[in-house]
């Protein structure tokens, strides 16, 4: 509604994707330089062997982030592919063990749509609802177990609200019942501590671009346990344990590795900073009437603040917020325009869900960004309400 439009955007959509860290860019540039390790890591000549070593160095960096072994990681093109590979690959490969699968209604599209595809192929899918805090109670999960349940998929951090599931408890329940557990950690890997040496997780998806790594590269972790065998999605070449063929993109993988190393090194300070930014933003806007936080602060990852506002249209609010860039619902759902199930699960009606704005922060977010967002949000809410019918009705 304001006419000034500075060229500089204030980017508060880090849950959708993050700017690549300059150190990560440097690692990528090294590979991309004329003297870089660009050769095919599958080639046996000296250039290929150097590339191979470069890839394995990055694999170790990612493994260290997750406290696991490099051999447990398969590089993919991102979390969408990792989710598909894990879910389709496990379900199809283990169909003899049963055709019942369990997931949650609050998962990301890359999980929900994949389960829908399996349903069309004759699998039975139970979609559990979270409690009023967005959480899956272990008892709810265990009540859903059947003799033919072979796979459970529950995300770690929700991409809309930041709500954190208790994956240790969920994984333990699955393990007790000898059911494979997949976790979509796209929103947590590189941000929250993830110790796969201890967590009872069989399959875990992650993607570099959510923690200042490059877009288009990710990994699937496969626990080194019997029963974790999955079928590949694609065929050809023997790369990545035959689970993911194709020439490995070395600069991408090098960037992923560098991002993982940075994330691990900065994890504690990054988290503390995100908490501070989150608190500051919420304190700055919570005094507006009719503004609600979606997802309790103490249950959610602090990199995300999701807020609803009564009597405001979400799409108009996002436009009014410019040049502050934030998201409405999930970046991946914004194509469909469907109201978010995730917020309705938290008890928001369609109107409140529709007004929700997701602010999300990263390593480069400054206090100035937050203060600008506070001003813009307050101004926009007031402005939109002032031209809306609710005011008139109150007045009339």
């Amino acid at each position, binding site marked *: *509604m304001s006419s000034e439009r500075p060229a500089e955007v204030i980017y508060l959509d880090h849950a959708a994707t993050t700017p690549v860290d300059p150190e990560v860019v440097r690692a990528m540039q090294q590979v991309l330089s004329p003297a870089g390790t660009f050769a095919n890591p599958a080639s046996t000549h000296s250039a290929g062997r150097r590339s191979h070593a470069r890839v394995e160095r990055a694999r170790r960096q990612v493994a260290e982030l997750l406290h696991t072994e490099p051999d447990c990681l398969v590089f993919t093109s991102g979390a969408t592919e990792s989710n598909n590979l894990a879910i389709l690959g496990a379900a199809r490969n283990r169909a003899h063990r049963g055709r019942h699968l369990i997931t949650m209604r609050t998962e990301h599209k890359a999980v929900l749509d994949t389960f829908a595809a399996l349903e069309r192929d004759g699998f039975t899918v139970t979609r559990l609802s979270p409690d009023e805090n967005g959480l899956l109670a272990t008892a709810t999960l265990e009540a859903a177990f059947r003799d033919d349940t072979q796979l459970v998929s529950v995300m770690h951090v929700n991409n809309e609200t930041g709500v954190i599931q208790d994956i240790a408890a969920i994984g333990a329940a699955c393990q007790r019942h000898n059911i494979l557990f997949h976790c979509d950690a796209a929103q947590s890997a590189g941000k929250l501590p993830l110790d796969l040496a201890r967590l009872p997780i069989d399959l875990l998806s992650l993607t570099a671009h959510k923690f200042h790594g490059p877009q288009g590269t990710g990994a699937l972790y496969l626990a080194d346990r019997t029963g974790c065998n999955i079928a590949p999605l694609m065929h050809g070449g023997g790369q990545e344990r035959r689970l993911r063929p194709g020439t490995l993109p070395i600069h991408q993988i090098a960037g992923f590795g560098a991002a993982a190393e940075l994330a691990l090194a900065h994890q504690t300070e990054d988290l503390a900073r995100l908490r501070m930014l989150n608190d500051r933003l919420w304190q700055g806007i919570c005094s507006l009437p009719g503004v609600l936080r979606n997802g309790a602060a103490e249950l959610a990852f602090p990199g995300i603040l999701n807020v609803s506002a009564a009597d*405001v249209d979400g*799409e*108009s609010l996002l436009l009014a917020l410019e040049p502050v860039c934030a998201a409405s619902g999930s970046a991946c759902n914004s194509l469909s325009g469907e109201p978010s199930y995730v917020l309705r699960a938290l008890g928001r009606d*369609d109107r409140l869900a529709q007004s929700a704005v997701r602010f999300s922060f990263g390593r480069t977010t400054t206090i100035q960004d937050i203060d600008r967002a506070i001003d813009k949000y307050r101004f926009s809410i007031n402005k939109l309400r002032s*031209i809306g019918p609710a005011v008139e009705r109150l007045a009339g």
Partner: protein
Amino acid sequence: MSTVPDAYSPRVLGHFAQPVHAGDLQARYPVEARGEATEAGGGCQILLTAGTEGNAFREVRHRVLGCPHLIAAAEELCCRAEGQPVDAPALFDRSELMAVLDVPVEKSGRILLLEDAWQALCRALKRSAGRATEATDDQR
């Protein structure tokens, strides 16, 4: 190949940034009326108010809870109506409105809602005008 909505058209952005017809009537008119429409879930709400004099729109105002396209369409409609005879044909032309503002087809429902509000306004105007005429007649 992409399903991302295009950028809002400059005209939508302009109306959204300065919706000069947003709000309430600024003066009193011989004939005044309002028309409302609300989407099922309550996500979109439109209130149109108009003042006429001598069978012409003198002032038309909107209050919209809705997306930028809907706000812009209401603004465009108010702009166009002011000064026109109340019975001017096709003051509301849905497809023309959508074309001039580049409203994506997915949003035709919202423009239909605006049409509902407009028609409610026109009906209310007719009723008010009738009463106004009666009042004038009474005064004679």
